[in-house]
């Protein structure tokens, strides 16, 4: 396990296109989660709009995990990824981006959970939540692409 983790960080330099793509995806997630967080924190009462529907998702009980708004947790997640990708681009040390790739499965797991909640529990979707789902899935896809390309399973022992 330790060998594999070391391999994840040390071997196989990340190509520039991957760093830039990761940065852009994290920036999209950052903007999206930032917008949702701000709307949540402003405490405004939800409304139903002719054009965009009702705020059924963002005002549901599922919009919080304990005392923490999901939008804010997402914001922290994307900010972390954004800073790590930027650090790699700026310092040219790819290890920071590798840390970012390692945490993408966490975002993906939450994405799957919240998509399930929207589709089967709330029967309603929130467009901004779907954008975030898209970014986190794409980021996870980026990580998987890199790991599979470099045959990570060979280093599992």
């Amino acid at each position, binding site marked *: 396990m330790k060998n594999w983790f070391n391999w994840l960080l040390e071997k196989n330099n990340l190509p520039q296109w991957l760093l830039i793509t990761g940065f852009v995806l994290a920036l999209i997630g950052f*903007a999206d989660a930032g*917008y949702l967080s701000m*709307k949540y924190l402003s405490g405004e009462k939800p*409304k*139903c709009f002719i054009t965009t529907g009702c705020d059924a998702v963002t*005002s549901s009980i599922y919009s919080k995990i304990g005392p923490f708004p999901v939008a804010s947790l997402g914001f922290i997640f994307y900010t972390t990824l954004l800073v790590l990708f930027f650090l790699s681009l700026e310092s040219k040390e790819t290890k920071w981006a590798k840390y970012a790739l390692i945490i993408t499965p966490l975002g993906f797991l939450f994405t799957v959970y919240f998509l399930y909640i929207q589709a089967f529990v709330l029967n309603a979707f929130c467009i901004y939540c779907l954008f975030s789902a898209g970014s986190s899935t794409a980021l996870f896809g980026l990580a998987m692409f890199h790991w599979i390309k470099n045959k990570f399973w060979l280093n599992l022992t």
Partner: protein
Amino acid sequence: MNKKRIVTWGAFILGLVILLFGLAKLGAKSSGNITTASSTLLAPVTDSDWFKGSAKAPHTIVEYSDFQCPACASYYPLIKRLTDEYPNEVRVVYRHFPLEELHKNAKPAAIAAEAAGKQGKFFEMHDALFNTQDQWAKDGNPELTFEDLAGSLGMNGKQFKEDVNNPELKKRVEENISQAVQNGIGGTPTLFLDGKLIQTPNSYEELVQLVVGKK
């Protein structure tokens, strides 16, 4: 850390702060969608409007609402509490604005409320519709639920069934819809206080302060 790195990081952080600031402004503008609405109530309150509270109250709230709207269902207890606690300070006028494209059962619900009004139970039906919203909102045949509600409120079931098919009641609801459209209203609930459009207060305390605290 050299100068170039400081500048690079400074620009990055500043860029993010500007982005967040822009998003905050965007959020404030798009929320409520009321920027498209006229800030003045165009259709004055008349004797045919449904209201709670004293007719002589110094303040009037006109609410455009949709019985199938979850936001309206969560907001109505605040309005109800306001009229219960301050009946001589404020009257609240209820007007229909079913968002038909989103909520297929909203207009039938509005007509059911009007039919209940014919038997003097408009606000009882109004409360019952919001309280049971989950039960009939996605129902393919909500009329049966509305008839059950009418029965539970002690109404004459036969009379109720006749009244829901009365074209006059449908016309009343459509008049409210037409008023809302002319006023440029884009969502529900939308509130006017003494003829002026207001942002929906976030809490009961804010609502009281806004209405009763108003001189």
